[in-house]
């Protein structure tokens, strides 16, 4: 403790100018970070800012294209996760997997049983004793080494996982482990947060810690220093004092407006293709789609959700805010923990909140998990577009007319300007952006009245994005209601006429963007 407070820098893990590229995406560009012993560093940034990539590089899951890693000022190379563990670098994930049937001590020493042998055989009693000593040493005597993991609450499990890091570093004789906490707080209740916080305080003197979080308030409370990433680059670095003196500085860094250029212009997505936002119809017009009393989990406040015809509504919120769940709920899918609300009104008429019924009523959902929940990679482009056809009328017929399917697909391909030579090519042969357009084509084949779109433009290049926005506007003009959940605030402010912000499963704020004058920074501050 004393050596820390003396003010001397003790870099435990340092990354210098780390870069990582995935295909066409530059995930990280010359990012540097330094974790000091005795300190908690927070890693902040929006979705897609590069936080997870950085964690993957620091834990050896992936290797940087450029840049060096230094552990205690010595350069190291991490080829695998095991290399990282051997170097005393550990990561605790937000929902750290554990074997629910295992006792705490078995989980703690899982993979290190060989260090607890008596006459050549693994000894449970040695492990149990070591574990109980450790828990006592860490002030966790309330946790019994023989409790089963499955019986513990998420907060306690997280603390046990952290204690396990200390246990393993003792076994491996690592004096000062580096602990990376990936969103440790997102699933915890307030009491659990306090427990975790005090435990982190306790561990601080023996380790260097990095924790990833979306919640700025937390970042300021817990961390000694804050490192902000934006678009894969270092956006800002500040000490706790600097950050608490100027709270907005964190927001600004996350939102991409650098403190020096306070009034820097927000960059529109494509000013030519996307002009003013869609005007909101007068409130007298009837609701196209409405759901009353939605509650995403038992502790959340209920909210009503209404969308008018011709309206484009944007849903904003950080990861875990519930915006994606709202979409799934509206589509008639079951959402874990959400309280059932059985009826959806479409143009004033009640419908059962069931996927099949809503599809027939023209409610189309396009999942954000394109590969898992959208694409049939090995089926052809034409087949992918045709699969939902005529579901609304219920007259799908027994036989397929392949030539008809082909002709329709070719028409859609030219309407949506999809770059493809032959509609009988398998969908997996297309780029992500074009795959997404094919899926939009499938939605159009359903003759949609309400479109629920989850991060449609994620991983899509700028040009395609612009043409997708044009499509949205013309759909809205033709009477379709669009609900977009997006992590891209610039996108929301330029496309949506109304933006609803979610946080912790609740609706927290609604912005009227009918004049297109909402500032993304304003939205960001209500999100975090």
């Amino acid at each position: 403790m004393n050596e820390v407070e003396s003010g001397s820098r003790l870099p435990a893990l340092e990354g210098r100018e780390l870069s990582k590229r995935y295909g066409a995406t530059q995930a990280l560009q010359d990012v540097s970070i330094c974790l000091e012993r005795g300190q908690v560093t927070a890693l902040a940034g929006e979705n897609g800012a590069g936080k997870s990539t950085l964690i993957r590089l620091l834990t050896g899951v992936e290797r940087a294209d450029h840049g060096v890693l230094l552990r205690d000022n010595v350069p190291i190379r991490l080829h695998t996760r095991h290399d990282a563990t051997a170097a005393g670098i550990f990561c605790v994930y937000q929902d750290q997997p554990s074997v629910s049937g295992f006792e705490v001590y078995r989980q703690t020493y899982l993979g290190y049983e060989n260090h607890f042998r008596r006459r050549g055989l693994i000894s449970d009693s040695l492990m149990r004793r070591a574990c109980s000593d450790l828990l006592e040493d860490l002030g966790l005597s309330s946790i019994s080494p023989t409790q089963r993991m499955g019986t513990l609450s998420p907060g306690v499990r997280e603390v046990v996982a952290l204690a396990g890091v200390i246990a393993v570093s003792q076994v491996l004789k690592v004096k000062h482990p580096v602990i990376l906490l990936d969103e440790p707080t997102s699933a915890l209740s307030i009491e659990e947060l306090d427990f975790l916080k005090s435990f982190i305080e306790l561990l601080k003197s023996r380790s260097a810690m990095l924790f990833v979080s979306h919640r700025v308030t937390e970042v300021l409370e817990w961390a000694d220093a804050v490192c902000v990433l934006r678009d894969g680059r270092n956006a800002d670095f500040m000490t706790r004092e600097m950050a608490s003196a100027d709270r907005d500085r964190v927001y600004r860094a996350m939102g991409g407006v650098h403190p020096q250029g306070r009034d820097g212009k927000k960059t529109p997505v494509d000013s030519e293709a996307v002009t003013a936002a869609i005007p909101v119809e007068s409130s007298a017009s009837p609701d196209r789609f409405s759901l009353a009393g939605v509650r995403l989990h038992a502790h959340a406040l209920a909210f009503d959700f209404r969308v008018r015809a011709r309206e484009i509504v944007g849903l904003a919120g950080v990861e875990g805010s519930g915006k994606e769940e709202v979409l799934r709920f509206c589509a008639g899918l079951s959402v874990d923990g959400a309280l059932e609300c059985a009826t959806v009104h479409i143009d004033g008429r009640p419908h059962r909140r069931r996927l099949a019924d809503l599809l027939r009523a023209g409610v189309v959902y396009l999942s954000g998990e394109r590969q898992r929940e959208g694409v049939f990679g090995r089926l052809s482009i034409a087949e992918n577009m045709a699969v939902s056809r005529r579901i609304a009328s219920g007259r799908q017929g027994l036989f397929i007319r392949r030539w008809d399917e082909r002709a329709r697909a070719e028409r859609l391909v030219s309407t949506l300007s999809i770059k493809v030579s032959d509609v009988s090519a398998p969908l997996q042969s297309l780029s992500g952006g074009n795959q997404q357009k094919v899926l939009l084509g499938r939605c159009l084949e359903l003759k949609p009245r309400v479109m629920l779109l989850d991060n449609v433009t994620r991983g899509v290049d700028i040009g395609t994005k612009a043409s997708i926005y044009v499509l949205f506007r013309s759909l809205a003009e033709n009477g379709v209601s669009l609900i977009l959940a997006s992590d891209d605030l610039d996108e929301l402010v330029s496309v949506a006429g109304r933006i609803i912000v979610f946080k912790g499963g609740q609706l927290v704020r609604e912005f009227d963007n009918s004049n297109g004058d909402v500032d993304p920074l304003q939205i960001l501050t209500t999100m975090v």
Partner: protein
Amino acid sequence: MTEALRTWLGSVLVIIALIVVFSALQPRFMTVLNWQNIASQMSVLLVISIAGTFPILVGSIDLSVGSIGTLAGIIVALSLQRGGVGGTLAVPIGLLVGLGCGLLNGVLFAMLRAPSFLVTLGTFFALDGLASWIIGGTPIPITDENASGVFDSNLGAFPTIFLWGLAILAVAVLVCRYTRLGRHMYAVGGSEPAALLAGVNVRLVKVTAFLLSGLLASFSGFLLSVHTLSGSPGQNATLLLPSIGAIVIGGTTLSGGVGGPHRTFVGVLLLTILINGMQLLAVDPYLQLVVEGLVVIVAVIMSRERVSVFTAVK
């Protein structure tokens, strides 16, 4: 070129190679009589393999095809033995049995959401036991000659049993390529969540795949009974593993969504020619099994259907 297509092309090349090698080594191989023999030998395997292709296409598996065949074959033999109304209705009765078993599998699997591997492992044992129990373990001879006249004689140069197999193949290919049901089977096998969100009735598609499987499995049992002129305990059970082998050799992947009956045909042809050729060359029967096993393994390697240990880990 996709991996499955490569497997399929590979199998065709292997078939050509086999024909060349066997013709060179054994003059009796390339005769009309032997090819009639091959055609007739492959028919029952072809029908039961097509049956098994449907559940595999939707990403499941039906291990009970052999048992369903046995049960249907025995019930058909019993009906024919009785004669009269039972005799004329033998075929429909057998097929109804198959549909019933398929429905049982489908309902247990799709409605109760039990894994198909386990459900059909259960019905595999249960139906096989039921079949043996019905006849007390002794084979039922078939003396009725009408059935063999229609299903197991020659039409010109072609064995009728083979023509029946081809007819089933044609219908199966039609279902897969030109009906909405077929398309939806590929969608469900390709990605179940995506199919669900696209509005496909996933459960119905799965149940139908098992219905088709049961129906065709019972037909294969019927063909075998007519061919051997008896309904015997466990008669179709030995065909289960060769049928899965044939499906995989053809290029229908066990993960679902790729392949189809037309490919299964190639797999069946390959296996049958291989066995026939080895028999003509008087290869030791035990060694034949070793060769068959190796061929299946090679086919799996060529289709690259391997699961990475690391895909499950974050």
